[in-house]
């Protein structure tokens, strides 16, 4: 399935076992990082049930969560398209799609800031659900910010023409990290916005 397996095969043929092995080691390293980060998110997500049971504040804006999810899913498609473009040597397309991904990321950040603003007014941050909500969205947002910085770095390198169809490892790494950010949100969204029964959790 892997789109980059095209290069996987080509590298082995063109540059021999060592170049292929090097690419492989980088990919395995990236995946180890992603898996370790996933465990961190799993621990935080499971803590929701210990800290706040299945209660959800009745003032939580579920539509906002849906909108944030839609934005991140769209950004995953644009990240995918940028990687496809890079793997085919289409540098302009890769730059364009990575820029679109960054814009989606910034819109998502704006949405999270709005969600926090509303949340501060709607339920106490010190409550069980408030603790879970701000911790989970806060940690995820740091990943979004670091993802945007990574994508911006890759965009800068792509603008200098440093990537080609045979060498776009940085592109692949940044795109995979961004997909992971999306993947984490796929679980965070229902855990925070959908699961359980809504109960009154007023600030006062």
């Amino acid at each position, binding site marked *: *399935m*892997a789109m980059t397996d095209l290069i996987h095969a080509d590298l082995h043929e063109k540059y021999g076992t060592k170049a292929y092995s090097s690419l492989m080691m980088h990919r395995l390293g990236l*995946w180890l990082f992603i898996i370790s980060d996933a465990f961190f998110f799993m621990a935080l997500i499971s803590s929701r049930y210990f800290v706040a049971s299945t209660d959800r504040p009745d003032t939580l804006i579920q539509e906002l969560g*849906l909108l944030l999810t839609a934005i991140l*899913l769209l950004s*995953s*498609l644009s990240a995918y398209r940028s990687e496809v473009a890079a793997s085919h040597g289409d540098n302009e397309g890769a730059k364009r799609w990575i820029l679109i991904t960054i814009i989606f990321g910034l819109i998502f950040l704006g949405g999270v800031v709005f969600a926090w603003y509303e949340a501060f007014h709607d339920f106490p941050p010190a409550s069980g659900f408030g603790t879970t909500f701000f911790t989970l969205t806060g940690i995820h947002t740091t990943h979004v910010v670091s993802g945007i910085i990574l994508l911006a770095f890759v965009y800068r390198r792509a603008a200098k023409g440093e990537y080609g169809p045979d060498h776009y490892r940085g592109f692949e790494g940044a795109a995979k990290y961004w*997909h992971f950010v999306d993947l984490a949100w796929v679980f965070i969204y229902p855990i925070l916005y*959908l699961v359980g029964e809504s109960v009154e959790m007023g600030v006062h």
Partner: protein
Amino acid sequence: MATDSHAGETKETKNKRGLIVLIVLAVLTVAEFFAAIWFEGALQLTLLGGSAILKALGIAHYFMHWRQVLDHIADIAAGDAEVVED
């Protein structure tokens, strides 16, 4: 060495697949939203959990190409690749 059943695909084919994956993810997301409204208790939890896992698998498989890792490990085991440091 690992083989790729999609090797030689055009950019358009890959982009089309990406779009189809996005549409499926969007449909599941909307379904989740209504499942949370219409159902409650264990059924709601099962539906939401199942949908989230399906979406995660879709992203990991089609966007993150997780099969590469298994291919690479298989390559190392088969001796088609070296463990290198650079």
